[in-house]
């Protein structure tokens, strides 16, 4: 993981989210309040626009700037959660050394753990954590393996399965929780956007 990796992945994710924005917006209008996709798109745009100011910075500083940008520029649940994710990554130790796959996994696992604490949501509550927590567990299994590319295919699969599993869940956290039974039958928009991001990043790592 490097600053240039973060920038290229932000662009990669932005493209995939933009391509799927209508679907996420529609899901959120069905069971949320419709702001999720705009928040995610605004956040990605802000991060991509940071390129010139962060490209020559050390990783810790760049992550910190991304965190503050996400935290102050997005709002809603997504801003707080993804801001927490990047802030936690920025606080990792030894960021001045080479970040190998093992270290990158550890940083992401810590980031997702902090998101879980901030949102006080767990698996089974019809939120983005239904995708992120199983992915974090899988990364924990994979992190010491030298042949991680095949492992990432499993991450892609888990993210997709868990995203789809939110469809029949009753929401107990987040905006959809106010709906009770009426939220059933729709995939959680936060789970969908998270899965799309994971899918795009894993595929790009596998193919490079």
């Amino acid at each position, binding site marked *: 993981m490097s600053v240039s990796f973060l920038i290229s992945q932000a662009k990669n994710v932005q493209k995939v989210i933009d391509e799927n924005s209508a679907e996420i*917006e529609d899901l959120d*209008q069905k069971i*949320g*309040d*419709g*702001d999720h996709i*705009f*928040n995610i798109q*605004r956040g990605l745009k802000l991060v991509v626009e940071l390129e010139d100011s962060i490209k020559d910075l050390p990783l810790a500083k760049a992550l910190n700037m991304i965190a*503050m940008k996400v*935290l*102050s*520029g*997005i*709002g*809603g*649940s*997504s*801003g*707080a*959660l993804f*801001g*927490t994710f990047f802030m936690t990554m920025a606080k990792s130790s030894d960021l001045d050394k080479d970040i190998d796959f093992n270290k990158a996994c550890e940083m992401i696992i810590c980031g997702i753990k902090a998101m879980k604490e*901030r*949102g006080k949501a767990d698996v089974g509550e019809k939120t983005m954590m239904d995708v992120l927590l199983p992915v974090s567990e899988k990364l924990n299994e994979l992190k010491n393996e030298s042949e991680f590319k095949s492992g990432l295919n499993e991450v892609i699969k888990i993210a997709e399965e868990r995203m789809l599993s939110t469809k029949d869940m009753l929401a*107990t*956290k*987040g*905006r959809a*929780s*106010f*709906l*009770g039974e*009426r939220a059933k039958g729709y995939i959680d928009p936060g789970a969908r956007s998270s899965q799309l991001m994971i899918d795009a990043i894993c595929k790009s790592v596998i193919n490079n």
Partner: protein
Amino acid sequence: MKKFINNNDDFLKESLTGFGKAHSDIINVNLDPSFISRKNKTKDGKVSLISGGGSGHEPMHGGFVGHGMLDAACPGFVFSAPTPDQMQAAAEHVDSGAGVLFIVKNYSGDIMNFEMGAEMYSGKNDSIITNDDVAVEDSTFTTGRRGVAATVLVEKIVGSLAEHSGSLEECKKLGEKVNKNAGTMGVAFTSCTVPAAGKPTFDIGDDEMEFGVGIHGEPGRKREKIQQSKTIVGNILEAILDNLKPGKNEKNLLFVNGMGGTPLTELYLVYEDACQILQSKGVEVTKSLVGNYCTSLEMQGASITLLKCDDEILKHWDAPVHTAAMRWGM
């Protein structure tokens, strides 16, 4: 979508700037990070009250900044919680040393962002969460009930206590009492359009209403055919009374709130229906508030809030207030 709009990215900034100019005798608007604060500095020793939330509910919360109510308000994007740096900056700007009480509506995004703002602010602070919407089941395992129109009453009543030298602990305690004593339920006849979305949040037939709607156009208890006002009001009050169970000799405040697209003529008709129904059930209405205070953009519809009042609540309700959207006694 038909709206007064120049371009989407500047929508909130332009509206806030206009608000600042229109009410320059009462408030100041700070941009980047955005917060609205009183024109006059909070006096030493007075607890500061800060609220905030997504925009689109005007006059809540910016219209309630001023003497007797809030010290600052943090507006997020339309229907999106504000960001922690806004709360931190507002707190640093208004705190006169007596501490800050954050008034937060119960939505995950608001709770998280206010929590982070409170962590980033080094001064003494505490928070209260409003969750008056009886349309939603309350449970310790879920996010719980939504915070809606009673937030206005909490801000008014606690605002008065803060003005009368209430401590941070006392303000929090009173705020929690008002929230607990209040119940709200709303009905929508039409949807609303978030400017960034450009299309209505939900589809609803010409002859339908969403019973128990949330203030962002979130679905409520059920979709029904529209009925006579008396029937709708009766059903809303039944849900509220079930929940609040006001006592026979208890005094109550009846608050009919417009969602933004319903004229005052209809809101007063709702008030009249509600008064008659409450009277027939032996529920005494002592105080009233009717108007558009906690809106959902251009949605047609209304919510009814009932607040059980003791002497402390009544005293602080009547106390002078001077804000852009609420003014009496001064």
